[in-house]
């Protein structure tokens, strides 16, 4: 019998910000442990919170084999890796004090706005070990500052957001980013002519990738429910379009470098679409084996679940041009907030953009009226795909942007 132990530990200091000041501080320190046993192509799992009795957990996992959950895969073996990294802050008090001082400065520089939400300093530890020589350990501390802002007098719940996730902290740089967004927000551009425009998304925005997250799911793909089913090896998108499944810091991912089955991919990425050619849907071991698909290391779920196929973040390969070069002198529409849109089953896409900025490739020029944008999956990443800028929008963390041509109209 093969036994595997998986542990997730989260320690977090969350600073809750309300009305430009620190309203509360929350500490969290939670350990979750799961024991998995593999026997005769079956898997049994049991988990517990906090202090656990490993023997008791193992007994429960063995008992869970009675559910007869088929898991005909080889557990990962003979792999040892250990990755540890830290954010700029180690001291919790220092973090709280810095956020307080940051808020004082933001309030002074942007008195027309109210800022709320959270700043967090989070350490996640993940480890997976088994009696086949698997021993992986990840410990990372990252920070996230996510401020939502509202212009005083606005009838909205909130008007926009500014923030980032990363390892570095630089107060001046964060202020610069906040000021740039708030100043552009104040510069209202009323006139807008409908037509085709270069539309710019933060690469980490998931709205424009929703259809690919769904249609590249290994099970949906393999069973014929995806628009992309049966098209591995076909060139479906533009030559410059390469899409990765990622667990790489450079792409803004600060979780564990391995998946729930202990799979580690080269450079912590896996190319699902390469130079426009479909290479694979995302899969875990079981789905890859059942449907004879490439195994991409996309096993996930709750700590005490049987690993399932889950979507890890996608990232796009950057071009060798800056955003300004990609725009070639045109003005783009930067999507700062777009919420609620979707794709039809055929791949047609439409969404309102609640906060669009006019953008020249380097800076936000002003706030446009609320817009509708629309396109189609195969056009967005095909003939209308312009590219991913090689430059980050801020030096605070990974913040690349992607541009594609779309139909745009006023709401």
């Amino acid at each position, binding site marked *: 019998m093969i036994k595997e132990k998986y542990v997730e530990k989260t320690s977090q200091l969350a600073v*809750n910000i*309300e009305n*430009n000041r*620190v*309203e*509360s*501080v*929350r*500490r969290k320190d*939670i350990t979750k442990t799961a024991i998995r046993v593999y026997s005769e192509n079956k898997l049994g799992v049991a*988990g*517990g*919170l*906090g*202090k656990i009795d490993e023997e008791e957990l193992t007994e429960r996992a063995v008992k*869970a084999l009675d*559910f007869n*959950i*088929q898991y005909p895969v080889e557990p990962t073996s003979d792999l040892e890796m250990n990755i540890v990294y830290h954010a700029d802050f180690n001291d919790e008090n220092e973090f709280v004090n810095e956020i307080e001082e940051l808020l004082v400065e933001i309030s002074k520089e942007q008195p027309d706005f*109210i800022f709320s*939400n*959270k700043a967090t300093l989070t350490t996640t530890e993940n480890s997976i070990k088994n009696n086949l020589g698997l021993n992986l350990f990840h410990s990372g501390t990252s920070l996230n500052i996510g401020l939502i802002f*509202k212009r*005083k*007098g*606005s*009838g909205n*719940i*909130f008007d926009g957001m500014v923030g980032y996730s990363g390892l570095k902290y630089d107060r001046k740089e964060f202020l610069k980013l906040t000021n740039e967004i708030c100043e552009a927000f104040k510069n209202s551009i009323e006139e807008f002519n409908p037509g085709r425009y270069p539309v710019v998304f933060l690469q980490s925005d998931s709205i424009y990738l929703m259809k690919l997250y769904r249609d590249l799911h290994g*099970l*949906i793909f393999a*069973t*014929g*429910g*995806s*628009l992309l089913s049966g098209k591995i090896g076909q060139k479906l998108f533009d030559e410059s379009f390469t899409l990765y499944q990622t667990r790489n810091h450079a792409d803004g991912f600060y979780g564990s470098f391995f998946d729930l089955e202990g799979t580690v991919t080269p450079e912590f990425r896996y190319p699902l679409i390469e130079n426009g050619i479909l290479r694979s849907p995302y899969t875990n071991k079981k789905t890859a084996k059942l449907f004879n698909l490439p195994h991409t290391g996309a096993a996930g*779920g*709750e700590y*005490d*679940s*049987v690993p*399932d196929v889950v979507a890890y973040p996608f990232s796009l390969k950057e071009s060798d041009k800056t955003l300004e070069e990609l725009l070639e002198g045109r003005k783009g529409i930067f999507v700062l*907030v777009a*919420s*609620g*849109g*979707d794709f*039809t*089953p*055929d791949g*047609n*896409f*439409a*969404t*309102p953009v*609640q906060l669009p900025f006019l953008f020249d490739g380097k800076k936000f020029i002003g706030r446009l009226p*609320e817009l*509708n944008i*629309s396109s189609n999956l195969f056009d967005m990443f095909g003939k209308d795909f312009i590219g991913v800028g090689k430059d980050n929008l801020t030096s605070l963390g990974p913040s690349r942007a992607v541009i594609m041509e779309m139909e745009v109209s006023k*709401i």
Partner: protein
Amino acid sequence: MYKFPEGLYTDVRIEDVFQTSIQITMGRLDDVKEKSYRAAFIRLYDGKRWFYASTSDVDGIQGEIDALASMASKNENIEKDPIFKRLEVNEGEFLKFIGKDSVKEISLNEKIGLLKEYYPIIAHSEHVKLWRANYIDLNVKKSFYSSKGSNIVFDTQRVGMRIGFELSDGEKKFADRFDRGSNYFASLKGLEKEIETRFNKAVLFLKEAVDVKPGKYTVVLSPEAAGVFAHESFGHKSESDFMIGDESMKEEWKIGKKVGSEILSIVDDGNIMGTGYTPFDDEGTRAKETYLIKNGILAGRLHSAKTAAALKEELTGNARALNFEYEPIVRMTTTYIKGGDKSFEELISEIDEGVLIETLKHGSGMSTFTLAPSMAYMIRNGKVAEPVKISVVSGNVFETLNEIDGLTKDVKILEFALGGCGKFEQFPLPVGFGGPYVRVKSLNVR
């Protein structure tokens, strides 16, 4: 009991959790999980700042209280603090989901058997390429103690079932699901007919749906769509934490202001059974019925003790936390639109060309709200006509509230079977939602 520090407000929420989840894919049992745990969230307030800790070590709660107290400043006048004064004191045991009504008493085999009874309805169709059936339940007993004297024990329970299916007919693809949420396991039985009806509708939609011609249409929202609309477009705006600190918002959102059509009333009520049932919130406040809009007039909003104190209004029982890892924030419970005076036939008979939104994938609400339909139909000459594929329906919230010109009599309260409401980091919180069929004069359909 705990030794609460002097000169501070403290409360402790202990959660005894029992939960089950089962997943079956294409007839294969993928996952079965039944677990129980005990964990706690502690809050401490010194009149200036709140301090929180969450822990899975319930034996160490006193240590957590003491550690938080060391970060706070003792306040001799804490009892005069407006938030402290607002906090309710309740005592007693209010357990509803015990004995045969508790999901703890139902065997795993019976829960797995429930899914096995239903999936043959869809599994053998030539159009089904992938199907997955899920069952979940969650029974939470909360014990709440405060330094002000609260000492209550209450419980909540949700059960949910979903059968999701991916359909294909040549190049045509469509994904749909049957969802059912409730408080009681027994409510999930006997659903064969409803599942079959939904499935057949989905297959017809797969085969016959055509692209909608984008434009502005009169739109009829089903109870599901109306409920999501009420929740996303107005419910979130009624959560008072968004108003704190902005004087002009207080003027903009003055109680008594006309905000919608006079036939429109929206209510939030944690007493209503369903997955939004919240007999006490996570500050120990009793559930209350709160009219957000009454006959088109802004009538109330949702509060925690902090927002009620800041706006000098009464508590509503809406301070809710996702689980022991989080602090309570202002959230909805069961939010719905009150019924009107028409039958469904009357409601659509007056429409020459319009759209009926029957089921939804999701919705959102800022100044512009959105609904992403799953199944939708044209309405032509007062009758439901061909199915149409729509990416998104959108409109300005306040214009739309004023453009509601028809409501059916019957109201349906629905539940998210597996998911719930998201706000900031806390997702998915169980809530209820619903309403009658709602007619809106003009919405943007794309």
